[in-house]
C-alpha cells in the first residue's frame, strides 16, 4: 500500500501530516522515539529567552474526556536550549519547530533572531495563545493588532518558516487569522487550549494552584475542529489542526475540514503509539477510498 502522505506546509515539506504538539512531546529527547517514520515533525515545548520556573503544583486536573494543565511555560531558556537540545535535533530526520513565547513583541523577535540559522531549528511556532501566562499569552492572541505585531517582529528576524498558533478564546478567529497572515505568517496552528477551571470541594478553592488551566483532549475536539475550519476558510496559508485528536478518524475530520496537517498532543500521554496509529490510519483510509495521495482527500471548505 503506497499512499503519498507528504504535506507541503508553510515552507516545510513534511513526510507525513502528523506532528507532535508543543508541550506534549518535551524536547523529543525524553522518550525513546518509537516508529519515528510516522512522525511528520515535532514542535518543542514553549520556550522564553530566559529560564522560567513554571507554576506550583497541582499543575494538572483530569476532566471528562479532557485535562486541565497549568504548567506556566516552565523551561530552561534559550541558551540552555541551544546547549542541550538543538545539537541533537540537527541529527534527526524530521523537522523540529521551536514554540516561541515572550512578554513583549520585541522579546519574540529577539528569541527568533537568537535561534535563526541554528542547526536543528527548522522553523518557529509562535505561541500567542498559551492561556497559562498572565502577561503575554492571552493578550496577544485576542487582539489582531497585537497578534500581527508579534508575527511581524518574528518575521523580520528570520527566513525560517513562521507558524502562528491561535488561541480559541476569541469571538471571531477569522479576524486574528487574517491579521497574522498579512503580517507574514507561513502557516497557522489551530488551536491552543481553552481556559477552564476545576474546584476542590474539600479545600473550597481551585484544584490548580494557578486557579485556571488550559483544557485539552477529546473533549475540545468538536470546538477545535470548528475553529480550525473557520481559520482555514479565512486565509490562503495552510492551517495545522490541533485539539483532541486521538484516532485517525479525528485527524481525517480536521483534514477534510480544510487543514493541511495535524498535531497530536494529549493523546500521546495515554497512548505512546498514538502518532503512529493516526498516521497509519490516515494512510489506510486514503488507500481504502482509492486515493493515492493525501492531496486527493476531498476537502469541505466553503469560502462564502
Amino acid at each position, binding site marked *: 500500500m503506497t499512499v503519498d502522505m507528504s504535506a507541503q506546509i508553510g515552507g516545510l515539506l513534511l513526510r507525513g501530516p502528523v506532528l507532535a504538539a508543543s508541550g506534549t512531546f*518535551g524536547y523529543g529527547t525524553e522518550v525513546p522515539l518509537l516508529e519515528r517514520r510516522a512522525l511528520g515533525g515535532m514542535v518543542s515545548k514553549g520556550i522564553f529567552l530566559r529560564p522560567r520556573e513554571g507554576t*506550583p503544583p497541582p499543575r494538572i486536573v483530569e476532566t471528562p474526556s479532557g485535562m486541565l*494543565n497549568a504548567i506556566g511555560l516552565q523551561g530552561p531558556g534559550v541558551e540552555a536550549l541551544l546547549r542541550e537540545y538543538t545539537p541533537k535535533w540537527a541529527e534527526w530526520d524530521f523537522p523540529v519547530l521551536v514554540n516561541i513565547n515572550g512578554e513583549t513583541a520585541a522579546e519574540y523577535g529577539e528569541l527568533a533572531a537568537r535561534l535563526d540559522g541554528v542547526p536543528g531549528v527548522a522553523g518557529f511556532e509562535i505561541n500567542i495563545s498559551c492561556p497559562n501566562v498572565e502577561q503575554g499569552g492571552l493578550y496577544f492572541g485576542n487582539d489582531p493588532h497585537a497578534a500581527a505585531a508579534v508575527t511581524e517582529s518574528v518575521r523580520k528576524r528570520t527566513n525560517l518558516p513562521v507558524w502562528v498558533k491561535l488561541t480559541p478564546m476569541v469571538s471571531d478567529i477569522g479576524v486574528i487569522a487574517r491579521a497574522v497572515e498579512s503580517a507574514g505568517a507561513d502557516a497557522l496552528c489551530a488551536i491552543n487550549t481553552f481556559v477552564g477551571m476545576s474546584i476542590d470541594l474539600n479545600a473550597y478553592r481551585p484544584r490548580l494552584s494557578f486557579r485556571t488551566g488550559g483544557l485539552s483532549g477529546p473533549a475540545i475536539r468538536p470546538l477545535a475542529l470548528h475553529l480550525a475550519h473557520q481559520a482555514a476558510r479565512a486565509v490562503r496559508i495552510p492551517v495545522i489542526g490541533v485539539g483532541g485528536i486521538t484516532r485517525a478518524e479525528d485527524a481525517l475530520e480536521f483534514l477534510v475540514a480544510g487543514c493541511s496537517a495535524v498535531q497530536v498532543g494529549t493523546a500521546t500521554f495515554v497512548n505512546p503509539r498514538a502518532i503512529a496509529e493516526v498516521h497509519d490510519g490516515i494512510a489506510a483510509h486514503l488507500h481504502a477510498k482509492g486515493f493515492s495521495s493525501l492531496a486527493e482527500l476531498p476537502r469541505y471548505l466553503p469560502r462564502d
Partner: protein
Amino acid sequence: MFVLTLRAPQVASTVRAGQFVNLGWTPGPLLRRPFSVYRSLDEDVEIVLKAVGSGTAALLAMEMGDRVSCLGPLGRGFDLARAGTVVLVSGGLGVAPMPLAARDARAAGLRVTWVHGARTADELCGEADGDGVVWATDDGSRGVRGTAVAAAPDADVVLACGPNRMLAAVAERWPDAQVAVETYMGCGTGVCLGCAVPLKRGGYDRSCKEGPVFRARDIDCAALPSHLPYAVTA
C-alpha cells in the same frame, strides 16, 4: 488495601525498587494512573491500592483476565549502593514500594528493618520478611503508639514513603533519607511537566523522571499539594 496482579514479564524482570508503572484501560479515565510496583514475581508485578477515586475504583472492579495497558518500569528508584543497615519507614499505602526495596536491599547485603505506620491496626500492612519489624499506630491499637518516624531506629540508609506530613518528619530527622513522592501525572514519561515536585533550592523536578524517589532534604514538603488523594489517604 488490595493487591492487584498484572502479567507483565518485561516489567517484572527489569523493575527496581521505587519505580512505578503507569496503567491505562478502556473504557476508563482519560489519563493513565501511576502505581508503585509492590512486588514482582517472575512474570507478574503486583500493585497495592485503595479506592480513592474513579481510577482506583475501576481497577478494583476488574475481573481476572481483564486487560490493562501497563507502561513501565518508570522513574528513578531507590539508591541502595551502600553497606550496613536499612530501615523502611512507611505510612499506610506508603508501604507500596517497600517489599521491592527489602528485596533489593537484601540483595545488596543490607540488614533490613521494617517500620509500618498507620492510623489503626487494620490499616497496617502485613509485610514482615525482614530482619526486624516495628509497628506503629496513631491510636496504639498495634505496636508503638505514635508515628512510624518516631518509632524507627537509625540506620545507614533510610527509605520512606507516605503522607506529606510524614515525609516532612522524615526530612527533619534524616535529611539524607530517600523518600518516594506522589503527584498527579499527565504522561509519566517526562514530557508534560505536570508532576512538578517543589525543591528547597527553588524550581521543580519531575516526579516521573528525576523522581519519584528524592533526597528528603532536597524537596520542599510544605509546598507539596496537601490534597492529593494518595497523600491524604496513605
